[in-house]
């Protein structure tokens, strides 16, 4: 038996003994933090030993197993800590209960607030038959997820498109940049939720969709504009020289050199802006909304149904992941040269 194998067995043995002893002696309640820490260290050591034995052609699979396996392990630990009475189930409902709450939210309809999570898509054929398209629209309108997504998309598009435009101009024209840079940097750091009250006053219907979308748009606008400006300014001047030397006119220079050269940084900005849009809309829905994932999360906090509150948080995270993946997919389509 070589050195490495002995170590591996030692760590696995340590893991079994540690958890066995802690459970047998009832040490988890007082020393759960130390238990989790030592468990974590041992798991890292075991994973590294295992990693050394994985043949090179299975390296990718091993790395993926770590990336997916560890979060699952965390969820299992959470579940066990609650079941063992170490964590209070009222504040930290176990993942299985959160999962059940999520399922419950998905299939049920809340008569009191006249909302559902996804808008009950299985009713679409029936509604289409009885009420036509207005019936289907009504289903969408009752959905928290679609309400949030609608606000994010509308705000993001309204903010990002002019943002790219202004950023391009600021990147290319020094006068405009000098005039606007200070102001932009100042507004950039301002938490956009802080301007929500004033935006509400500007709109005819302060409680409607207008102010919510506007604040999302403003958040996206500054992020995208500043990133686009940086992207344009960081273009290697040799590309501009090459464009000029090969006879590109102003429009050709923009279309064939400046825009594609800045595109990767522009997309980094769009990604940031999309994440921020989601953060801002959830915060706004906490404060003032009758629908939306943020509203739903806050509502279940207010009535102390914590497992559904956690389910709401999970939906927010899932939306963030899906939106980011979608944007990256579009990015890969637009920038085939960035693929390895």
């Amino acid at each position, binding site marked *: 038996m070589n050195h490495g194998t002995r170590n591996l067995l030692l760590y696995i043995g340590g893991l079994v003994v540690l958890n066995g002893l802690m459970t047998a002696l009832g040490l988890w309640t007082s020393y759960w933090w130390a238990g989790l820490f030592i468990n974590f260290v041992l798991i890292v050591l075991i994973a590294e030993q295992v990693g050394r034995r994985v043949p090179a052609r299975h390296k990718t699979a091993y790395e993926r197993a770590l990336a997916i396996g560890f979060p699952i392990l965390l969820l299992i630990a959470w579940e066990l800590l609650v079941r063992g009475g170490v964590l209070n189930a009222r504040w930290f409902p176990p993942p299985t209960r959160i999962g059940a709450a999520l399922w419950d939210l998905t299939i049920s309809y809340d008569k009191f607030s006249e909302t559902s999570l996804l808008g009950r898509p299985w009713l679409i054929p029936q509604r289409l038959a009885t009420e036509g398209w207005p019936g289907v629209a009504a289903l969408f309108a009752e959905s928290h997820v679609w309400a949030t997504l609608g606000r994010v998309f509308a705000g993001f598009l309204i903010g990002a498109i002019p943002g790219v435009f202004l950023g391009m101009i600021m990147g290319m024209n020094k006068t405009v940049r000098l005039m606007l840079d200070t102001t932009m940097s100042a507004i950039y750091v301002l938490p956009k939720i802080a301007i929500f009250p004033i935006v509400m006053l500007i709109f005819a219907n302060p409680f409607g969709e207008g102010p919510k979308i506007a604040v999302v748009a403003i958040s996206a606008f500054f992020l995208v504009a500043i990133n686009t400006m940086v992207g344009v300014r960081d273009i290697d001047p040799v590309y501009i020289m090459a464009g000029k*030397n090969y*006879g590109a006119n102003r429009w050709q220079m923009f279309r*064939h050199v400046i825009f594609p050269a800045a595109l990767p940084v522009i997309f980094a900005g769009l990604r940031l802006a999309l994440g921020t849009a989601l953060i801002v809309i959830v915060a706004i829905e906490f404060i003032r909304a009758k629908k939306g994932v943020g509203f739903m999360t806050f509502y279940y906090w207010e009535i102390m149904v914590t497992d559904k509150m956690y389910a709401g948080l999970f939906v927010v995270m899932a939306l963030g992941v899906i939106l980011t993946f979608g944007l990256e997919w579009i990015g890969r389509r637009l920038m085939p040269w960035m693929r390895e």
Partner: protein
Amino acid sequence: MAPKIIARNVGKVYETRRGQVEALVDFSLEVEEGEFVCIVGPSGCGKSTFLRILAGLEPLTSGEYAIAPGDDPNKPLNNVVFQEYAIFPWKTVLENVAFGLQMRSVSKRERTAIAMDWLERVGLRKFADHYPGQISGGMKQRVSIARALANDPEVLLMDEPLGALDAQTRTVMQEELMRIWEETRKTVVYITHSIEESVFLGDRVVLMTAHPGTIKEIFPVDLPRPRSHKTTATPAYAELTYAIWQSLQGEVMRAMQEQQA
């Protein structure tokens, strides 16, 4: 026959916050049609500045220069092969080579045909649909050279085009460059800091002084063409290389001292 390129008393002064910096002083040079002229000098002597002035990418402060147009007025006067390749990472190899033609609104079919022909000549036909990120440094520089030649300029300006390559790739590329040049016999101004390279490639070697840059000496290269690396094994090659080094040595020392001061 009138010279292809005439530069008379070209001077360049950079305005900086700390005052004026003279990069180029009283630089006069004539290049014949079909001639391959190499400019050698210590780093920072303004040789690249001169090339950019010729390319119209930088204004000059004093003097004048002209590139004689050819019979076809639609042909560009010059194109540059940059040291950092400067081929566009977001365009495929084929699109890069066809870039100059596309800017001049040559139809897609025609420019693709011309670009494919040049890719064939530099041995990159198979890589037409690759992006620059997927090919090696030597191949990138071949794309860059093909891009310039596909555009068929009156003169070709090369700014240390092989400077970023490793020594072995560089040797291979020098021979390849000679082979392509023999086919086209274009007028070339070639900037390099390598004496060996300048003697191997050029019809004349123009040696520049250190900062501020001007011409120190011009060496005609009487080695027979077509040249291959066998040329570098001849006594004539060795003698000329040594003579240029003797002349350059003092300038390099001065440039180094100036940088330390």
